[in-house]
């Protein structure tokens, strides 16, 4: 079926930022199959919200906002299952079924650390890891840049402590 002009423009923009759905989904879902569902739901919501997108503003900031909003809703809806279903075999079977690419061991470790944060701090960390500016992080979350800096400092301290205790126990 031939795609409409709007759909083609949307897909072209999405293609330039196609990592966003999976980056955000990874921070909120530990199970690989859930990650794929969450990423698909993010793309669906991006498309549904696309008529409201203002081309004068950055597509990436808008896409990050939608991705985080959807992922938080997804996470809250299935939190118990998501937390319980930590894959015992590294998620190999689920990944095989979902078609998700194999993450490195360090990336899984990173996800595990991020999963210990609350839902808003997770978004903050993912945006920071993705090298977004404080201004953009503040814009996505709806807080001040000073607040971003303060929260990031606290998170850095906590992550460092967790990482050290992880290293000493493994």
């Amino acid at each position, binding site marked *: 079926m031939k795609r409409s002009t709007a759909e083609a423009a949307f897909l072209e923009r999405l293609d330039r930022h196609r990592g966003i759905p999976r980056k955000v989904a990874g921070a909120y879902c530990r199970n690989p199959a859930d990650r794929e569902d969450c990423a698909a739901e993010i793309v669906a919501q991006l498309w549904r919200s696309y008529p409201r997108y203002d081309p004068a503003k950055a597509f990436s900031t808008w896409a990050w906002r939608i991705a985080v909003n959807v992922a938080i809703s997804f996470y809250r809806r299935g939190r118990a299952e998501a937390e319980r279903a930590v894959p015992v075999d590294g998620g190999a079977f689920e990944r095989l079924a979902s078609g998700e690419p194999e*993450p490195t061991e360090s990336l899984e470790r990173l996800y595990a650390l991020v999963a210990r944060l609350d839902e808003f701090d997770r978004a903050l960390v993912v945006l920071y890891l993705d090298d977004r500016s404080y201004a953009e992080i503040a814009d996505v979350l709806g807080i001040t840049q000073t607040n971003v800096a303060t929260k990031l400092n606290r998170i850095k301290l906590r992550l460092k402590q967790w990482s050290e205790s992880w290293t000493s126990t493994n």
Partner: protein
Amino acid sequence: MDLDELKTLWAANDPAFAAGLRVERAEALSAKAERRIWFELALDAIAILLIGSYAADTIGDPKFAIPAILLGLYAVGFAIARSRQLVALNTLDYGEPVLEIAKALRGMRARRATAVRWIALTAPLLWVPLQIVGFRAFFGIDAYATFGVPYLAANAIFGLACIPVGLWLAKRFGARFGETSVARAFADDLTGRAFTDAIASLERAQAYAREG
């Protein structure tokens, strides 16, 4: 390993994040959500039309018209609550800042929990009007004449008794259902736990924005 070291690791995984995103699945999900909304609204409309038509047919006979009007008002109230929820959800702009959306969604969740609680608690009271209307509409039976007023009064008392029993059951056994199951969600709505949770999480979102 600190956050800045993790940044390097994150960047190294960039191709993996971008690989094989399934747009077709997203399209299917979007269409499914839309279909479900229209299906629910169609069911509400059919119920209101059927009850309204019955009430109009029996308008000259208050003993049948009044129960039908009660059921109709309940159905209209239910449809309004559901429509408001659907409109709010569909007009919600997910492109707004995360904390704004979190606050809006949690406020909606609290209102929905209140609506479901009231609907569920008052539903047993409709058992008698439902019998009067149902027997007459589907089988042509006059419940007043066939079963007698004492039977209907006993049913009304039964309906009233169901309210505290239902609340007790929801409190006692609600936690046994899986946290994401429909039964658990209903039990949480009924006992007011869902409302309390929604308000607590709304306050967390507000506090997050305030913290320095």
